[in-house]
């Protein structure tokens, strides 16, 4: 695997984001949402904390992140450009990594732009930096996982809308599996599994500022797993 090749694809996709209106719509919607969440708790509840913001973040992520990944493979399949890409001397893994890193960088850039909120907190109060660092780390890991899943689903179809809807469905399912509401109704024997597989429990523990290597490992494993699925789905195209 050559990182240089992945880098070429990443550069192309990242430029693609910023050359289309999608990037700006995404950033605007996301930042407006962030500001709303933040100032609501800031003024109404008089809390100088990013905690409510981060706990609510997975919900906009559920819709916004599939929008970032839906076209990455679906469009290539629809236009036929995948053929050109796969005929060039790069491996499937390099292509997948390149696309993932492009969407991931875009997510990180967007999250950095929201960094203005903790700066405000810094000037007006004495924020809990543990929560902020944990929050951002959690958001990046959760977002990365959503991206990996969305990217994989995009490789299964040539229709962006189908990729979008199924990605939402998939990340939503994985997210709520560990939610207390689901856990309450699930059979006792499945509880530990569901709790581990579900993304929300891991996210919440990182949010508390408790950075546990097991939670990080969980996210990295899920990301790698779905990137691997993605490579497999590209390779299997060759055989039929």
């Amino acid at each position, binding site marked *: 695997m050559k990182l240089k090749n992945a880098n070429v694809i990443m550069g192309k996709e990242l430029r693609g984001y910023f*050359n289309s209106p999608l990037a700006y719509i995404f950033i605007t919607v996301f930042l407006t949402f962030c500001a709303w969440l933040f100032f609501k708790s800031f003024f109404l509840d008089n809390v100088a904390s990013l905690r409510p913001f981060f706990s609510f973040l997975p919900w906009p992520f559920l819709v916004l992140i599939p929008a970032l990944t839906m076209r990455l493979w679906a469009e290539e399949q629809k*236009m*036929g450009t*995948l*053929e*050109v890409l*796969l*005929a060039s*001397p790069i491996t499937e893994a390099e292509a997948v990594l390149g696309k993932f890193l492009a969407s991931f960088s875009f997510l990180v850039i967007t999250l950095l732009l929201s960094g203005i909120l903790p700066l405000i907190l810094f000037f007006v109060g004495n924020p809990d930096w543990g929560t902020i660092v944990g929050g951002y780390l959690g958001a990046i890991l959760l977002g990365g996982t959503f991206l990996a899943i969305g990217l994989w689903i995009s490789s299964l179809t040539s229709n962006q809308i189908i990729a979008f809807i199924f990605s939402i469905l998939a990340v939503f399912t994985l997210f709520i599996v560990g939610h207390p509401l689901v856990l309450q109704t699930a059979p006792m024997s499945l509880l530990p599994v569901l709790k581990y597989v579900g993304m929300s429990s891991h996210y919440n523990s990182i949010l508390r500022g408790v950075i546990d290597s097991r939670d990080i490992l969980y996210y990295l494993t899920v990301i790698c797993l779905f990137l691997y699925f993605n490579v497999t789905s590209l390779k299997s195209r060759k055989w039929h």
Partner: protein
Amino acid sequence: MSVIHVRGLRKKYGEHEALKGLSFDIEKGEVVGFLGPNGAGKTTTMKILTCTMSATSGEAHVAGHDCLRESMAVRRTIGYLPENNPLYTEMTVAEYLLYMAELHGVAQEHTLERLGVVAGECGIKDRLNDSIGTLSKGYRQRVGIAAALIHDPEILILDEPTVGLDPNQIIEIRNLIKKMGQEKTVVLCSHILAEVELTCNRIMIVNEGQIVASGTPGELRNLVEGHANLKLVIRGDKRKAMTVLKEVPGVKDVKALPAKEKGAHLFEVSTAKKKDLREAITQAIFTHELILLEIHKETVSLEAIFNQVTNSDKQ
């Protein structure tokens, strides 16, 4: 070994067998036309050669490398224009060509030079900053070919490069292919006979997953059974002309066709294969005091060859 070496290539799509043991060789510097009706297996073969698809069985070597095991080496030697010429419409021509250069690992210091060369060759120098989506079909096709050439590949594979173009654009693309053929090995897929005849020095006809004929256009003509046809326009008595023509030794059949000129008659004369009867016929017409206005020898058209070899299975 030949540049492209294919033996017993088979490809199954579920129950349907698209390639039934294809074998052929292409030598360095050849411009080969891969001709066949739609669904004959041309595109499948090209996909296997460019490593975008795996064969069910059989082997394919390109420039000495196995398409399955050494696919990276194969891909580096091939410039490929897939069917329907897929392009990223939101990119500009220059962006796209530079991206393709990077993908093919063209060294950074050479990319701009290569960009200039291919843009010049394909005549898109003044369109480099245009978005691909705004280009006409002819220009898009040139961009596709330029992209296939960007890494200066040894072999150029073009799958239906002139589909959907207007006659002028078709001529331009054909000239471009001819130019490329002077220095590269070119494989051109097409179902348009005139195209391969004009651009290629060898033609392979594929039908239902098998090569049914291969050779230069001249060789293919000889291969096909049939007869030379002469068309004559004669002024004078129609019946007399008919009997005179029939009496010439070697004439198999004479048919009278409606003539366009008044007082003249058009005849179609079939003669035995490889026999030139033009002299004997003109002589006979002259001695019987008829007037010969036109004589034309028809060669077997590539269309006829194509029809014959691609339909023989069904008959």
